[in-house]
């Protein structure tokens, strides 16, 4: 019962304790302000989550998984974009990251992560590290994130960025993602962000029965839908075309 409110109720105010409490409160406030100064983008991140991801914005299905929302609130997206885009990092847009690659818009990253149904302890593989943002978001949920990038400078920069931001648990590899990462199979979830004419059969084989794979479909800057591939316990596949956007029923009346 040491809170100022409790003290006020008892009416017995000890001046020394009050002073200490005031100093303590001041220090706490100072720490909070300092933390805010250290991360001036936190407010933008929270707004991004509440405004673009968790809300029913423009026909989107809101992301409701709290672990995903928390991850999106935590990962400093502005570190994953090019210097010229830092102020736009939290906008509802994909951004170029060089080498013909993009960082997906926040909603798509969140929706893909939610679709994977990642739990702590799950082993997740990402093909196409890009900036490393998706890997960082996954790493906020589980410790076992593996990511492969074929474009060497992009992969190097992402690995360094992830380490600097404290995501050193994310295992990065520069190379051909087509054959997956057999040393760490099976995977509970796989994200394939590199455009391909087909789902690489080796990735399907490395997916644990009951596991899920997510593939965004569309040209750069134009994710039109997310393909969810579920591997049933008998090893057969079922794909679901999860429109990134919910369209009003296409065959409705006039």
């Amino acid at each position, binding site marked *: 019962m040491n809170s100022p409110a409790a003290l006020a109720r008892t009416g017995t105010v000890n001046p020394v304790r009050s002073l200490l409490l005031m100093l303590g409160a001041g220090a706490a406030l100072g720490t909070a302000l300092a933390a805010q100064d250290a991360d001036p983008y936190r407010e933008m991140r929270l707004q991004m989550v509440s405004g673009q991801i968790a809300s029913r914005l423009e026909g989107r299905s809101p992301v409701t998984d709290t672990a995903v929302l928390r991850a999106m609130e935590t990962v400093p997206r502005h570190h994953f974009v090019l210097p010229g885009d830092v102020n736009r990092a939290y906008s509802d847009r994909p951004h170029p990251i060089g080498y013909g690659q993009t960082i997906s818009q926040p909603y798509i990253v969140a929706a893909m992560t939610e679709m994977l149904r990642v739990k702590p302890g799950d082993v997740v593989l990402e093909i196409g590290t890009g900036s490393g943002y998706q890997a960082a978001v996954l790493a906020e949920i589980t410790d076992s994130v593996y990511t492969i990038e074929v474009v060497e400078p992009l992969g190097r920069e992402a690995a360094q960025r992830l380490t600097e931001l404290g995501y050193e648990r994310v295992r990065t590899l520069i190379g051909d993602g087509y054959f997956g990462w057999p040393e760490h199979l099976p995977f509970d979830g796989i994200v394939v962000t590199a455009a391909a*004419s087909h789902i690489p059969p080796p990735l399907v084989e490395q997916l644990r029965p009951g596991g899920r794979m997510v593939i965004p479909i569309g040209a750069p800057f134009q994710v039109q839908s997310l393909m969810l591939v579920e591997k049933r316990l008998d090893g*057969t596949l079922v794909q679901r*075309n999860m429109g990134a956007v919910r*369209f009003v029923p296409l*065959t409705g009346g006039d």
Partner: protein
Amino acid sequence: MIDPDARVEPPGDRDRQIIRRLEPAILLIGATGIAFEVALVRVFSIAQWHHFAYMIISMALLGFAVSGTALGLLGARIRGREPQLLRLGAFLLPASLIVCYEASQAIPFETLQLTTRPGQWGLLVVLYLTLSAPFFLVSWCIATALLIEPGRVGRVYFASMIGSGLGAAGVVGALFLLPADAVPYVLALVALCAFLLVGGSETRWLTAGTLLAVAIGTLLALRGPAPIRVSEYKGLSYAMRLPDARIVAQRESPLSRLTAMRSSMIRETPGQVSGYPMGRLGVFPEQVALFFDGGGVSPVHRFDGSLERFAFLDYVTSALPYQLVRDPRVLVIGAGGGTEVLSALAHGATLVTAVELDPGVPGIVDRLGSFSGGLYGRPDVDLVIAEGRGFLEARPDFRVDVLQIALLDAFNASSAGVHALSESYLYTVEALDLYVNRLSDDGVLAITRWLKTPPRDAIKLFATAVEAARVAGIEDPGDHLALIRSWNTATLVISRAPLDASRRAAIRRFAESRGFDVSWLPGLEASETNRFTVLDEAIYYMSARAILSADAEGFFRRYPFHVRPATDDRPYFFRFFRWRSLPTLVSSAGRDWVNYVEWGYLVLAATVAQALAAALLLVLLPLVLLRWVGWRAKGLDGARDPAGRGSLVACFAALGVAFMFLEIAFIQKLMLFLHHPVYAVSVVLTTFLLFAGLGSLYADRMRSSPVRQVMMVVLLLAALSVIYLAALPSTFRAWAGWPAAGRVAVSVGILSPLAFLMGIPFPTCLQVVSDRTRPMIAWAWGVNGAASVVGATLATLVAVHAGFRVVVLAAVLLYLTVPVALLGILEHGGAAGDA
């Protein structure tokens, strides 16, 4: 009421030389202008995507209109100095071709970033302005030449048209020999020759010309042409970042830049390979990727004669026809790198006729030597370089068991909708009717398309097939059709005979074993669909049922995308956007709605809007400026009253739009007949420009009564256009089997009378203006230029919505307004002069 400013002054001694050499110089300048335009379309198709190429070029062409307006504004102030102004323009032109081309390739413009980086819009404007400069100068030279010889505008116009015709033909030939990035430098040398013709003997001009020639020569010798800056988002740019990527061959043609790239990481398949047991059957053979303009990719497979390694091709949807016909004779349209040819052979084809449009493709496959295993040289493969439909039109007795139309574009290009405005005569009702007629009694036609989200491609294909079957007299089309899909492709099969029980069972078995969904099959139950790639609704099945029902019309009306069958009159299979659906799309997808429509269409609409706005500005601004600045007597206000100016605008705008409408419409019509877009463009452009040039020469001689002459010409034009509309399809069918040279000759024969007539009204009207209010010539030239740009883009928009028939009829109506407007110019346009 003779306008003293408008009187034609005799040329001085030093200008006689320029007048003598005026026409050859204008011919070269006209050739340079059109050749630069064609070269830029190629450059920007390689650098970005072809729909943006047209946007950029059409805007740059407004430079044409600007110079006319500028000279019109300067009016009498430049009187007597026209030869010097021409020399200046001709001197600047060669340098501008090189400087502007190089600058345009240094501008870091990325079309795909337009939606995310506002600064890109600024770069787009800079690009427009940069590329406008050479067109401004070309037009400046022609307009000053018209002012130098005001009494002979028909001859100057003739020279510019002949030059343009030769330029159009010449640049297409040059693009077979030279890379597109070298063309601006060659054109700079052509323009330099034009300058030397008009430069006269003055030492300073001679020195300047020599210095320019030395500078261009030195630049080319030391550094060569500046390379095209290719977007980092094109497939080739991305693929070249693969660790072991290397270019093994490259070929240039007016059709495309074809690049063969090798990397161990290239693994292209014709769609999803479902259930392929890679562990048991092995990895796919190594591939070389063929990139078209750095975009669409077609793989060449390592082939050592062993077809077992191509077992994976039985795990894609396009393998469906081979489950229905044994040991077939196969026709592959769009053979490309040979995937479907190999698939046919692996499925036991006895003979494969491989039709490929681009001669560069088999050329590169051959150059890959032992890698491609001489695929196109095999005795059981018959390679034909032709457009698929033209090939079939020319061979009425040709029959096959499987007619396979492969995926002709890349997955990403398809999803971005870059082909929305590519006319495709391969996917029309008439085309499908032709294909079915070339099938043996048991034969099947198979067409595979990438799927889009929300669904539209396969639905439109199904609708087109149903309509084609009805046209062919099949009473119950549903009995002849089957549609299966993976997550990213759909294959439609049309069987000449109704699909019997054994064939239906084979289709079900194949789909089940590969994890494909059957979306249409006679007798299919709803519960059998939507099992492997699950959609919210079984939309393909529901759509197929709706299209086959009595309420097909209601379905087309309700469906949010344009999925009505494509026809030869509106051959835009890839256009799905409907304005009516925009509110639905926006309410569903918010700001992301643009991701779900075809960019090509939006870019065209934006281009038309921009061109219209810019044209209005160019036409109206001078009138406003005149009031403010008070240039009444000297400048454009030579036309004495607003009615005269209005008539002038109406006359030259109608001429500009109508000319382009007919030109674009006939390019489209001949594309089918000449079997090749490049041949169509070059034959139509060259014929139109050359014969329109002859028409203008004729106009120069026939000056007695301009209104009567124009009236006669437009009536003849109207009659001829209507006759052509009615008679061309049957004429083309009758001559379809002729060799290319014969078909070109027939095309020239058909087009030349039309083009000759089209060449007469413009110089006739311009001569009337010249004789009455000389400074107005430049402005009229500018109005016509602006209207031409609007007309070129608007023609496609009208064709998309209403068909080419309407484009031609609209042109006829516009031509019929010209005599009325000309009367207006004569009545209100100032002094009688010598008219």
